[in-house]
Structures are given as C-alpha cells and as structure tokens.
C-alpha cells in the first residue's frame, strides 16, 4: 500500500518570497508628482497660469527644483544658466532612459569608452611590479655621471652614483638573457647555451622588421616594430613578456568531488611567467622544421619562433588564450574567506 504521505511533494523547491530590495530613490529626479484633488475642489483643472495655489502650479524643471532644494538647504545647487545635463541625470536610471528621445538613446548605446564587441571581459595584461615599470629600451644615458668630489686621503675615488645596473658581478647581464640562457642549457653546458643565445640575438638582429598583428597585441609600451631589430634584447623580452600567461591552473586533487580534481587559477610572478613562455617557445621551436645543420640550427629555430610570436603567427597565442579562458572559468572555484 502506498504511503499517504507524498514524500516527493517535499522535494520541490519551496518558494520563498525574497525580501523586497529597498530601491535607491533619487531625491532630485522626480519625473511626475501625483496631483491631489480634494473633493471640495472643482473637477475642472485649475488654470495653471492664473492660480495662486502652490499645488496648481506646473512642476519646475529638475534643475530648477534642485536649485530650490539647494537654496533651502543652503548648499550650492546647479547653475541654471547652463541648462540641464540630461545624460547625467538619467544615468543609471533605466526607466528614465526609456523615455528619452531616440537620438539620446542611441547616443547612450554607443558610448566610446565601453569595450568593443567581441572583446574579452577580463584583462590579459599586467603591470610590471619591478621598480622601473616599463621595458628596458636599451637607451644609452648620455648624461655624464655625477662625479663625487675628490676627498684627499682616500686611496680610491668614491663610486659613481647611481651605481649602474650591471655593476654587480652576478647581475651584470640582462635578466631575460640570463634566464633564457639557463633555460636553453642542456646537460649543464652553459657555454653552448651562451653561444646559442648569441646566435638567437644575431638572427633577431638580421631578420626583417616584424609586422605586428593587431589582433595579437603586444604588451603596453612596446616600441614601434622598426626599433626591434636594432635592439635584439628588447625584441626577445617583448616576445617573451607578451606571450607569457598571467596564471596557471592548479589541480586540487579530489576537491571537486568524486575523485575529480578541482581547477584553481594561480597567479604567476614575472619570472615564473617568463619561464613558462620560454619553455613554450623552446618546445614550439623543437617542433619546427629543421632546415639547417650544425651547431646553430636549434638557435635559428628558436629565433624564428620568437619572430613568429611577435608577428602573431605563433600557435602559442592560442595556448595562452586557452589558459586564460580556463582560468576565468576556474575563477568560480575560488572560495574566498567570508567578509565580516
């Protein structure tokens, strides 16, 4: 015999009346005010122009009303001689926007500062957290260095200030060049890696001016492409920093339930980002067709891949976009601590 109590009936969602949101009312913008007519009043509408009664007077303009209000409260109101900025008043008020004339509606729709159609809702660039901010353009400082005054009795002169970037023996070379050299190194053969690095830079120097693909934007502050071959280190840095992903996906084991791994986006630091990008470039280069022979063939392919990255032809851009897309999707998996 079936039970009388229908268990299934409780599985349905119980509708809960949501608490009505208190709407934020603009005190100034009151488009229509209900006119109250007492029973004793005549049914004929009063002649607005002749009546002395305040309720029969036509409503003032929003700006006038705001000016009156400001006068009462003793604050600075809008300047009545300037006209009413309608766009500002209806901003954020959907119901008021619907009543606007079509010209103004269209103007609101095509606002210049909104993102173009089809673009991402999230940013794929990051600002450098290093102190200098922008790229190292390799510009030579032609200002004479500040010379310290000669102090008698010292054996050596005081150092020139500011101390140049490459004055430290362990950091005398460009950080990107150092990092790429180390990543190029195989079996601990650093000299071979350095030779490859020199060949890569030489190839970048002698290859033609790259044509930038506008759909694959390089990082902000990039110099014009005609400057790149003359500054191969900048060329290399630009390619690596542009294609480097901002994050990686960490797989939290078993956190998604049922033994499945939960994807969590994890932001990367600058050096980590560069490392990822260089490893992508090296793996893509090794998959390229080997057209040369001898010691420099791999270096040449790496250089070709770097040029392809800057020109937007490399498949690494899709890889980067995929990572970013995955990261945006996995953003939902982050549980932030509750705010108090």
């Amino acid at each position, binding site marked *: 015999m079936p039970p009388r109590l229908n268990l299934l009936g409780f599985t349905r969602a119980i509708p809960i009346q949501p608490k009505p949101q208190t709407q934020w009312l603009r005190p100034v913008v009151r488009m229509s005010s209900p006119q109250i007519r007492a029973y004793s009043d005549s049914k004929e509408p009063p002649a607005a122009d002749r009546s002395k009664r305040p309720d029969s007077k036509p409503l003032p303009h929003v700006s006038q009303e705001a000016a009156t209000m400001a006068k009462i409260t003793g604050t600075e109101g809008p300047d009545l001689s300037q006209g009413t900025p309608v766009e500002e008043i209806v901003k954020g008020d959907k119901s008021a926007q619907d009543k606007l004339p079509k010209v103004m509606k269209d103007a609101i729709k095509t606002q210049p500062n909104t993102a173009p159609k089809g673009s991402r809702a999230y940013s794929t660039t990051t600002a450098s957290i290093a102190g200098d901010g922008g790229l190292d353009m390799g510009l030579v400082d032609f200002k004479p260095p500040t010379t310290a005054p000669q102090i008698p009795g010292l054996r050596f002169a005081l150092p020139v200030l500011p101390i140049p970037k490459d004055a430290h023996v362990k950091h005398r070379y460009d950080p990107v060049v150092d990092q790429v050299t180390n990543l190029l190194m195989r079996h601990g053969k650093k000299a071979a890696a350095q030779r490859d690095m*020199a060949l890569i830079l*030489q190839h970048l*120097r002698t290859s033609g*001016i790259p044509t930038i693909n506008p759909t694959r934007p390089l990082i902000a502050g990039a110099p014009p492409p005609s400057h790149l071959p003359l500054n191969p*280190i900048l060329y290399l840095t630009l390619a690596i920093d542009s294609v480097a992903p901002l994050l990686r996906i960490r797989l939290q084991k078993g956190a998604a339930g049922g033994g499945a791994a939960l994807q969590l986006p994890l932001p990367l630091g600058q050096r980590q980002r560069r490392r990822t990008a260089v490893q992508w470039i090296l793996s893509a280069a090794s998959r390229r067709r080997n057209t040369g022979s001898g010691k420099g063939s791999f270096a040449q392919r790496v250089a070709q891949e770097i040029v392809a990255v800057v020109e937007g032809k490399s498949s690494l851009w899709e890889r980067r976009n995929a990572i970013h897309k995955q990261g945006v999707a996995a953003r939902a998996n982050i549980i932030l601590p509750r705010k108090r």
Partner: protein
Amino acid sequence: MPPSICLRSFSQLSLDRSVHSLASRSRLSPHAACFSTSAARFANPSPKKGRVVAPPKRGQKTLNVKRGRKDPQGDVGKRPAPGERKAQRKRIVLRNDNALEVTALHDMAKATILSGLDEGRVLGIPENVVDALRAVEAFKPTQGWGLFWRPATLMRKETIQMAGLLKEVEESEEGQKKTIRRVLSGERLGGKSTLLLQGLTMAFLRNWVVINLPEGITDYPAAQDITNAHTEYAPLPGSQPTQYFQETYTANLLAQTLKANEPVLESINVTTNPSLPLPLPANATLKQLVELGAVNPEASWPVFLALWEELSVSGRPSILFALDGLSHIMKDSDYLSAEVKPIHAHDLTLIRHFIDCLSGQKSLPNGGVILAATSRSNCPSSSALEHSIQVAEQLQRDPNNLLHYNPYKKVDQRVMDALKDLRDPEAKGLDVIKVGGLSKDEARSIMEYYAESGMLRAKVDDGFVSEKWSLAGMGNIGELERASVRQRI
C-alpha cells in the same frame, strides 16, 4: 542433507572418465560441468585479439620504451632536402638591411690606398671589388660581414704594412721587379683572413692579377680541398719524380680567377705560343685562354701554365698569389700513389707551383706578392711549419736567441726546405707578418663604427673601450667583435 564429502566424491566419480566406456563418455561429458566450475576457472584464458602480452600486474615494474605524456616531444620536424643544409650553413651574407648606414664611411680608393694615410680608419670596400672578392671566395661565413650595411674593414697597422709591400713592388724598377713573400700568423680570431682579404682588395684596386686559393668553406677550390682527396687527380705525364695534377680543381680555379679578373685579362692579348691540347683562336686574349681551361678540365693545367707564362712577359701586371690555410698543404695529402703510398702535398702540381713561388724558387718578372695565411681553427698539425713560424717571429723579436727544433717531433724535410728562408736571418724575401691585437685607438675606431651602424648600443668612451679591449685579450679583433657586437657572453 548428505555430507559434503559424499557430494564431492559423487562429482569426482562422474568426472573420472576412465571408468566409463568410450560410448558413454559422450553422454556423460555434458554433465561434467554441472557440478564444477573449476575447469573453466583453471583453463588457459583465450588470447585476446591484437594483444599478445598480458598487461603487467599491479605493482610490477616494466620497461616502458614508449614516449610518455610527460616526456617532451623530440625534434619531429621534417628533414630538409639534400644539399639545403650545407647551402644554408655556408651562405655568405654581406648585408644587414636593419643596420644603419654609416654616412661618413668612405670607400678604399685606388689613388690613396697604398699611401698609408688612412691608418686607424674604417674604410668600405667598393662594390666591384666586393663582387671580385666573392668570386675568389675571400669572404668566410664565420666573419661578421652580415651584421653591417655593407662590407668595411679597419685599416690597422698590419694593413698599412701590407699596403707598403704592394707599394714597394709597384715602385721597384722596371726589369727587376720585386717579389715579396709573406706568411700571416697570429692568434685565433686575430684577423689573419681579413688581412689577406684586405691585401686582395688592394690588389684588385691596383689592377693586379689576383689568384686566390681560399680555405675550404664553400666548394672547391680550397686549400683544404686540394689535399683532402675530394677531387680527381692523375699523374702528370713525363714528370720525374711523379707529380699529380687535378683537372677539375684547376678548371674551377681558372673560372673563379677569370670572373674576378675579367677586365684585366680581357685587355691583354696572348703573345707567346702556348702548346695546348685544344686549339686557341688567333689573336686571342687572356680571357679566351682562361675560358678554354675553365670549360675543358682536361686542358686546365696546361692553360694554367700558359697563363703564368703570359703573365711573366714583361710589361704585364703584377700578380698577387694568395692562399688561406697554409698548414693544409704542409703535410702528406690524402691522395694515394700507385704504390698505395700517401702523396706528399708538394707533389700536387698546383701546390708545387705555389710552394715554388713561396720559397723563392720561382720569381715573378713583373713583381708580385705571395701571401700565405695560417689558420688556428682549422689546421692539421705540421710541426715543421709551426717551428719555422716561431723561429721567424723570434728573429723579429730577438735575433740573437734562436730556437731549436724539438728533436722528439717528426720533421717533414720537404716543408723545412720550402720554408728555409723563414728561419734564415740573412734571407729577406720570406718573412712573417704577425697579426696581433689592435691598439686602443684602433679599437676605439672600429667600435665607433659599430656604434654608428647601430650594432653597439653603448656610449663609446675611454672606459668602455678599455673594458672591451681588455676583455678581448688585449685587442684581439674577433674577440672584440664578440664582446661588443655579437653579445657572446
């Protein structure tokens, strides 16, 4: 319920086939499976399709030779067509479109090149000379020509010295023209081949006839390819002891010489009556003579000799005969004689000719310079050559304190005889030009050229020049280029 022992014996009874007659076996066998599943359980599993080896058991280590997911994919690119790789490796690029053009760069001029006034300046090589130098394969792919807008060289101290040699030959009296013989030696990357190229450039500018045996870089002819048995050879008829000539090599050399010296050879008519295996048209020019040898390899060696005869007639231009990679011709070649003995390189006719000129056995009636550059990167060991050069350098430094030959090293007497003049304090014809480091002024000059070309992004001041000059091993020009331009850390 019957005890289990009974049931078991009953089932075994029915399975014991031997007790049943043959006729009843077929009837009984279907019953066999009714009580037991062991037959099916212990039977060999039927082999699956396409899988011969069973998968390894859990916890058992196996050798996995397949590429795992974690392993990076190796080089899976397609292989290039035959010959493409070598062409790319040996390609000579003389221009970098990205480099800035140095507006203040002047060309070497015919009138002033031998004056020595341009010491310490960087001068460009004129375009027609560049073509000629390309024809005689004077440029090497390892040199840094491809980094700059157009080829230019630094007029260093040794260059001025070489210009002085050419001037000396040109200014010697008609009828007793001088023949100057020099060996270029020095450190690795020190600029020996470039100095040779500068000598060739000056000779081309002064309308000399230039014959160059380059080091093996692209294709034959090359100094190393004369001796490494890559081209065909044949004994020269009527020679005692037997000499060997190389048809194809000589024909190619003639073709290159013709291409480089065409205006000079065109202007000279054949005056002697050479005995050639092929007919030469009457009133022929030297160009036609050389073409004959270049097109017909079998006539190449007689044509070469006939050309040399023609150039020896008085009133003809001087000759620059140069070779890069001297140690390749100072040893036994890789050719074998009929007795399966190695042929000494000096028994090959072309090399014999060069050695005769270098040792002074043959002199040039119209004057000329014989240049032989050594190499430090691509050189088979030749202790006799090394010793001779060391002695010659010692003679320049300190003539009173001579070196002796290491008795424990094998001596090649033919080489010692050929380079006798190098070790002789009295002989003046053959000497060594030591290509050393640049001075700081020269280094500054070439580094300013680098900076003006946009290849060096630094302020060239005294401190910077001194730093790079020291890093380059006291101004070794190749190392200087590596340190400043190529960013070879």
